Structures are given as structure tokens and as C-alpha cells.
């Protein structure tokens, strides 16, 4: 664990096809067979995308697997089922359901793209825009510049280094690295189904990355993966015990979180089941508040006392400080460094997985796109940039956002929502209402909380991150870079469409801009 491994000698985690857990998948197109169909099986014979399946000994084909259909693009090929159907029995349309999915930050095609990546481990073969949202600013307006073909290098994905270091302080503690520039954000036992959080831990182990307990205690199911589980110490101190600090490779002090900066946390009484109450050492059915801020921290000196306490309990632990993005986030970051933190984790205002007041998510603290370069520059000016790991989160949705965040100055990112989308969260936002998430993700309900299997969660996450890794490798190769570390702070490789002349802007993919009904 303590050694920096040569990633090129490691096999990447295995990708396995992991289909949707729902009977009817959602695709960009809908394809229907009408009553003229005579079940001749011609479509199944033709389709290479497994949209039409008619196993041997079956009298008729299965219902079309619509999410695999590439739509009108198929017209250019010799297997376009609509034209080849001898009975003219098929109809192809854009799926009107997409009008009712997604939002400005996660448009429907980004959701479908992530479903596809989590299923296959590769880029979606359907023409989906899964890299850009429709928000009209921040990452959605940034593009990587056209690479110079002369500098591109031809090396295999396996030979590209996507590791990042988490301890740059040379303080004698383990020089820990993770194999991808991402790890999982805190999701607590109580707010999220056990199978989801354990599945994330299993995926973290396979990816040689990390996941985080959130502020919900440390279920024993985490123990087999303890080298990959960060223990979070937040203001409520739920489930924080000496042994959970001794287990962990990294400990995270959560001062604030982007989705509800300055507000603390709140677990509704309905979610405090017997198991949750036991884990958090509280009362069944009673709402739990994590106050804001730490009652023991009034100054940076108090903060140092926290860090020292943690280091004393576990002599190998690395220390991460999670803060939100106020206007003085750069000063907060430098304070964290001088208090002895190994990682400063800044959490922007547009992210978050659990329930939070809408007014906080929209209005309080700055978006992460502004905070990353501000902190990166300040740490550089102070001469400590190479002595602390800067991790960004809060609104980082896809592989390209990760690459952009790194180019802006982060070392890596923490991912939350995308993990949930990989296990088919549709971002309906009802995490807190009634029994919790109807899709069995953010729920501890006796029925809903058991809708997912750990195996499914683990593999879907591995698949998604492997798909992202391919994107990072493509970017690095095109700029002649062999390591993701070389991308850090390379904002010169990016443009922002609003900062380009009209003619120059035309050279880049335009920003999606369609009106959505919120």
C-alpha cells in the first residue's frame, strides 16, 4: 500500500458487461415493431448492435433493446433495419421521454451516456453528448485546444500513468498513490443503501482508489476494503471511534460541504432505522443533525489541534481537509497546509449527492470552476503547491470535467453524483422524501434499500471509471503527455468559448444551449 506502484506493470481492472437492473432501458431512440411484423427475424440477423435479438428456437424476436440503437446514423450502413424490414413493420423516432429527463447540469444525454459507460466500460456507441452539460458556463464552456498532431504520442492506455500522489509532504508517512485521479465522495451509512456504499468500496479496491464513509459510521462490511476507505470526521462525530481512525489510510475532516455550505447536515428521522441508529449510536426514528461548524474549532490553531489529534491516533494516516468554496478559499487552503494536512479538498457549490436546501445549492459559495485556479495559483505563489494535494469536487460530472479540473490546477477529483448515475440514478432529486430514493440508491428503507446488489454496483463503477480512463488517455496522448500529473495546471491547453473571437470560437464544439423546463 505504501509503495508507489508502477502502474504500467499492473493489469487494469477487468471490464464486464453489466446491463441495467431495470427491465425497460431508456434510449435516445425508440424503435417499435407494429402489427405488420411477421417475426421473420431479418432485423435480428442484421443488427450488429444487439437491438434486435431473436434467440434460436424462439418464434419471435424480443422487444427491441432500444438504448443500443444508433438511430438515423444507421441509415448510412447496410444494416438499417427500418429499410430492410420486408414488411415495413418498424418505426424509429427520437425518444420523447428525454424531454422529461435531466436538467441543465446533467442533460438527458449525459445521463444516458453514463448508463452506457457503466454498462460497457467504453464510450457509448450511440451519438450521445455525454461530455458537456447545458449550463452555459464553467466546464461546459471550456474546451481542450486542438492538439498539434506532431506532439501526439502513440502509446497504449496501459502505458499511460493516471496515478496521483496523496502525500507530497515528505513527512515520513506513507507515500500513498491511487491509480486514477478520482476517488469517491462521502456517502453515509444511513443516507445511502448499504449495498451502494459497500459496492463503492469494492470498486475502489479494484481501481486502487478510495471511497469515503461520509458521516455515518463505519459498517463492518467495510472492513475487507479498509485500505480503500476514508473515515470522515464531521461535526456530528457520528460513528467516529478510535478503531475507525486506526483502520483508515486517510482521514477526512469535513468542515463544510458544497451542497450546503455553512449549514451542517440533517438525516431525516425516517431514515434512522434500527441499524442506522445503532451505527450512529442514536435513537431510531429521531432526526439527526450535524451542526455547523465544529464546536471545537474557532481558529486555524484549533484546526491544527484536530489534525495533530488524528495523526497521533494513527501514525500512518494521511489527513484530508474538506472545505467549501467561500471567497477566501485560498486562505483556507493555505491554513490547512500549515496545519499539517496532506490533502486540501475543496467542494464547490453545485454538487452534492444527498438532500440539501435548494437555496443553498444554488446560491451559497462559488462554483468549483472558479475555486480551483484561485487555490492552485495561491498555493503556487506561497511556494507550497508541490507539497499538498489539491482535490476538487462539487459539480464534476464526467471524465472530461475531471481532465478540465486537473488542467485548471487540481491534482484530482472527488466524485459522488456520477457514481450514483452509474448505478442508474436518474437525478429525480427525491432522496429525502418519504421512504427515500425510489430507485433504491439513497434509501435505507427495508424494501428499497435492498434493490441493488453489491456486485452490480462494483462492476458498473469499474466500468464507468475505465471508460473515463480511456478518455484521459486519449487527451494525454494527443498532447504528448505520459502522465496525468503532467496535465496539472496546464490551463494553456484549454480555451473558454466566451473568451474567444467569434471566428476562433467556430473551431470548437459549440456549447449546448437548449431551453429546458425546470
Amino acid at each position, binding site marked *: 500500500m505504501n509503495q508507489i506502484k508502477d502502474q504500467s506493470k499492473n493489469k487494469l481492472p477487468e471490464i464486464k458487461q453489466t446491463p441495467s437492473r431495470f427491465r*425497460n432501458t431508456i434510449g435516445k431512440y425508440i424503435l417499435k415493431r407494429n402489427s405488420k411484423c411477421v417475426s421473420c427475424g431479418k432485423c435480428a440477423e442484421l443488427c450488429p448492435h444487439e437491438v434486435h435479438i431473436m434467440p434460436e428456437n424462439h418464434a419471435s424476436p424480443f422487444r427491441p433493446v432500444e438504448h443500443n440503437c444508433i438511430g438515423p446514423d444507421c441509415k448510412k450502413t447496410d444494416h438499417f433495419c427500418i429499410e430492410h424490414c420486408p414488411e415495413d413493420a418498424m418505426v424509429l423516432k427520437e425518444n*420523447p421521454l428525454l424531454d422529461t429527463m435531466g436538467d441543465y447540469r446533467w442533460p438527458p444525454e449525459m445521463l444516458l451516456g453514463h448508463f452506457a459507460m457503466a454498462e460497457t466500460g467504453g464510450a457509448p456507441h450511440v451519438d450521445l453528448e455525454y461530455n458537456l452539460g447545458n449550463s452555459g458556463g464553467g466546464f461546459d464552456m471550456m474546451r481542450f485546444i486542438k492538439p498539434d498532431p506532431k506532439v501526439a504520442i502513440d502509446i497504449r492506455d496501459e502505458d499511460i500513468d493516471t496515478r496521483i500522489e496523496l502525500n507530497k509532504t515528505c513527512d515520513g508517512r506513507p507515500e500513498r498513490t491511487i491509480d486514477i485521479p478520482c476517488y469517491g465522495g462521502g456517502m453515509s451509512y444511513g443516507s445511502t443503501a448499504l449495498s451502494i456504499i459497500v459496492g463503492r468500496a469494492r470498486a475502489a479496491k479494484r481501481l486502487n482508489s478510495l471511497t469515503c464513509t461520509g458521516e455515518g459510521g463505519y459498517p463492518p462490511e467495510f472492513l475487507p476494503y479498509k485500505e480503500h476507505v476514508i473515515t470522515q470526521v464531521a461535526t456530528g462525530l457520528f460513528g467516529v471511534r478510535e478503531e475507525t481512525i486506526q483502520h483508515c489510510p486517510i482521514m477526512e475532516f469535513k468542515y463544510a460541504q458544497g451542497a450546503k455550505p455553512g449549514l451542517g447536515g440533517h438525516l431525516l428521522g425516517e431514515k434512522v432505522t434500527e441499524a442506522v441508529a445503532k451505527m450512529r449510536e442514536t435513537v431510531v426514528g429521531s432526526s439527526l443533525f450535524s451542526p455547523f461548524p465544529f464546536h471545537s474549532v474557532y481558529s486555524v490553531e484549533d484546526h491544527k489541534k484536530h489534525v495533530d489529534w488524528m495523526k497521533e491516533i494513527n501514525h500512518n494516516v494521511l489527513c484530508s481537509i474538506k472545505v467549501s468554496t467561500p471567497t477566501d478559499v485560498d486562505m483556507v487552503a493555505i491554513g490547512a497546509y500549515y496545519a499539517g494536512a496532506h490533502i486540501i479538498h475543496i467542494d464547490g457549490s453545485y454538487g452534492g449527492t444527498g*438532500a440539501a436546501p435548494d437555496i443553498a445549492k444554488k446560491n451559497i459559495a462559488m462554483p468549483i470552476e472558479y475555486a480551483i485556479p484561485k487555490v492552485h495559483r495561491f498555493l503556487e505563489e506561497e511556494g507550497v503547491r508541490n507539497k499538498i494535494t489539491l482535490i476538487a469536487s462539487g459539480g464534476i460530472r464526467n471524465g472530461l470535467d475531471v481532465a478540465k479540473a486537473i488542467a485548471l490546477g487540481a491534482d484530482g477529483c472527488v466524485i459522488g453524483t456520477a457514481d450514483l448515475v452509474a448505478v442508474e440514478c436518474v437525478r429525480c432529486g427525491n432522496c429525502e422524501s418519504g421512504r427515500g430514493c425510489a430507485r433504491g440508491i439513497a434509501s435505507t428503507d427495508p424494501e428499497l434499500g435492498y434493490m441493488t446488489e453489491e456486485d452490480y454496483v462494483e462492476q458498473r463503477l469499474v466500468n464507468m471509471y475505465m471508460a473515463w480512463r480511456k478518455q484521459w488517455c486519449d487527451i494525454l496522448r494527443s498532447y504528448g503527455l505520459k502522465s496525468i500529473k503532467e496535465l496539472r495546471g496546464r490551463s494553456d491547453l484549454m480555451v473558454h468559448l466566451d473568451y474567444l473571437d467569434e471566428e476562433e470560437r467556430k473551431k470548437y464544439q459549440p456549447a449546448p444551449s437548449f431551453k429546458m423546463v425546470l
Partner: protein
Amino acid sequence: MPQKYNISTNAAPPRFYPVGKYSTIEFRENCAGSCKECVKNKCVYDIFKDNYLHMSKMEEPEYLYTCNSCFRCIQECTKGIFSRVVNPEYREIGDAYWTPDVLNRTWYQAHTGGIPVSGAGYRGPFVGKGFDSMWTDMSEIVRPTRDGIHGREYINTCIELSRRPERLAFKEDGSLDVEVKPILEIPLPILFQQPDFGIYSKGVLLSMLTAAQTIGTKMFLKAADVYEDMMCFGKSIIPLVKKENFENYPKLLSLVDMVEIEYEPGIEKTFGTLKAMNKDLVVSVGIPLSADLDYAKICVDLSKADMDTLHVYADSQGRELNSDTPRFIKDMLRDIHLALVDAATRQQINILASGGICMAEHVNKSIICGADGVAIDLSLLVAMECRLCGRCMNDLSCPVELESIDPEYGSNRITNLMGAWRNQMLEMLGAMGLREARRLRGEVGRSMWFEDLEKESFAPIFGERKVSIDVG
């Protein structure tokens, strides 16, 4: 322990089915009929519960438009007979500023008294115009109290409406040498105001006045529209008068403690007469934020006269009046506030802002821009289920029968909305580490503006911005 100000809320379910966003569609011809796995029985939100009732009655089913978007019925039906659409009526309600989302959230808050909460992060555009082009700051450590989420009750949201003396002076014997007038204070920085369109039925106005009285605020109401049986609301009313008619309302002006007179040049000459009618009367002047007026200068001039509060009016979307290129109220407020600061009169008088205040966050953002408080109008109608359809302006019937609203019910809905707004204000104030709404006034240091953040974070990377920033 002293009593803490609190707005008590009680659920007030809608009288009419709200215009929901989504509708589930069933293609019943493909239904298996007797499927034991029917997804309707499994709906987590029970929205199909009354499914069969409407079929027998041939009525529109109630579950339409209440879908919570979990997609499970769509994805689990064994025959795949479900789909979903956005309710076309939902697309049509409101306008570009008072969006369907704003109306729906307002209805929710008026119904439950709770604040809108959702999971999975923010969903909107990166930045918008007007108030959506600024963010409020937070503090990692500082909190007004150390009591976490319970500490909010210690945050003071009072504002004053009366003039403050520039300084105190004392006689040789230590007694005061200046006249200190009674302080007029309200417990939250939100006042009500009669909307400039809608149904002015007695029920509607009484609902607003009752809610104002319940929560301890005041309502601006045209003096001519104050019926005799509203006199009992006395100090909850701020009559709106004009130079030519204020003398017609001696009885009303003797009952109230604040009056607003419409601005016109030379209006300051009437202040003496007004105060002669009621010596403790707090005087507000209503000033339209019109492009043909130098409103900042007018405010400075008025602030030096014997008046208390400047009440500035933008249009319902917060825009400057009579302009082809209207400015937004936040920028106009900044100008007025700073002009008063320069004139050294800002500490003595108060500013109230009207127009475009449709969400709780707009209250705090207006205060950051320089207001002491805000006055709201359309939100009061929306709280009572108004859909802003404008049918009443064409003498057509109101789809939610506002004309027959029971004041008890209407005031309950408005009180709920104010309870939810105040809670949200407290969330923002707490995050900023502020213990008093008054401390927020003009505190731009507690905010972050789009244009500044772009300049600070992006300009060093991307150079000069070529697409102009339209935040107005």
C-alpha cells in the same frame, strides 16, 4: 430566556390541483390486463392509488402531473406501456422571470411551510441574469452561534422603518439634547404590497392583511382600497397616498404609524403637513425606478428632508421602468445605496425595494445590494394559488377562484410562505456568519459576483472575455 421571533406554519393543502410538471402516459391497449407485477401497485409515491375512481366517474385522474420522476413505472412495466411527458400547461404558466419552477416552489412553500429541499446537486444554469449572477459567501468557521442548526433562532431579522438620528448630543446635565423619535421596527425584512393587477376581492386583501398582522409586518395598500372593516388592522397598514389626496384620509392616517406618499418633485414640502396629522407618523416616499428620473440623486435629496424610508419600485421582473435597455434592481440599488453613503445619510434612512422579488434568496441579495428590506406583491397572490395567467386582467374567470378565498385559509398560505422564506434567509445568514439581517445591508463583501469571479479566476487563464457579460 426572551421569546424568540418565529413564524408558525400549518399545512394548507391547495384548493385546486396545482399545475404539475410531468404526466405519466399509459398505452393501455398494450396492457397485460391482469398482471400481478403491475407497477401501479408498486408506486413508491402511491400516485396511482385512486386510479379506478376517475375511470368510473369519467373525471381527470388526480395522479396526472404528480409524478415524482423516479421512472420506475416506465422501466419496470412488463409490457413497457408507460411513458411520460411534460405537462403542456406547466410550460405555459408564468413568464420568463416568474418561471413555472418559481410558481411551483412558491405553491409548495405556501402549502407546507417547509423549504424546498432536493438531492443530487444543483440543476440550473451556471449563471443567470439579475440576482442569479451573484452568490453569497459562507464562512468555514464563523457561525453566529455555536448551536448549529438550532442556532438560527438567535439570528435577528428585524429592520427599522423609522429615521435614526445622525448622532446623539447631550446637555451639560447629561440629558439628551436631541429629539429621539420612537423606533418603528418590524421583525423581518419583508413587507407586503398590493399587487398592481389581480383580483382585489375583500377576501384577497384580508388574507394579505391578516398574514401581515400575524407575522408582525406591514402592508402597503392604496388608501382608497382600505375598507372600513379593515381599519381594525390599523398599524399593519401602510396607506399609499398622493400629494393631492392625502388630506382626504385623516381618520386612516391617525390609526396607522406609517404612510407612503408617491414621489413627485417638491414632495418634501408635504412631509410637515403629514406629520401634523399624526406626529409619530413614519413617512415613506415611493419612487419609481424610472429611466427618466435621476433616482439616486432624488433619494439623496429626500434623505436630507424629514422623512424615514425610501421605497423604490422596479417592474415585476425587477427591471428599470421606461427604458429600452433596462437595468436590474440589484444594480440600481447599489447606485442608490452608494449615493447615500457618499452623502453621509445612509445610516439615517431606510431603503425598501419592490419588484422582482420572487424567491427567498432575492431578499438577502437585495439587502446585500443596499436595501434594508423588500416589499413583495405577486408572491402573495401566488401563495394563494394564483397562476399568473392574467385572465383577470381580461375580465375572465379566475381558475383558482381567488375572488372567493377564505381569508383564514389565504392568510395561512401566505404565513406559510413567509415562514419558509424566513427559514431560508436564516440558512443564508447563518452560512455567512451573520447574526443580524441589518448587518447584511450593503455588505457586498459577503457576496461574489459573476463578473468579478470571471475576472479573478478566468481572466489570468483565458485572457480577455469576448462575449459581453449580460447580468442585468
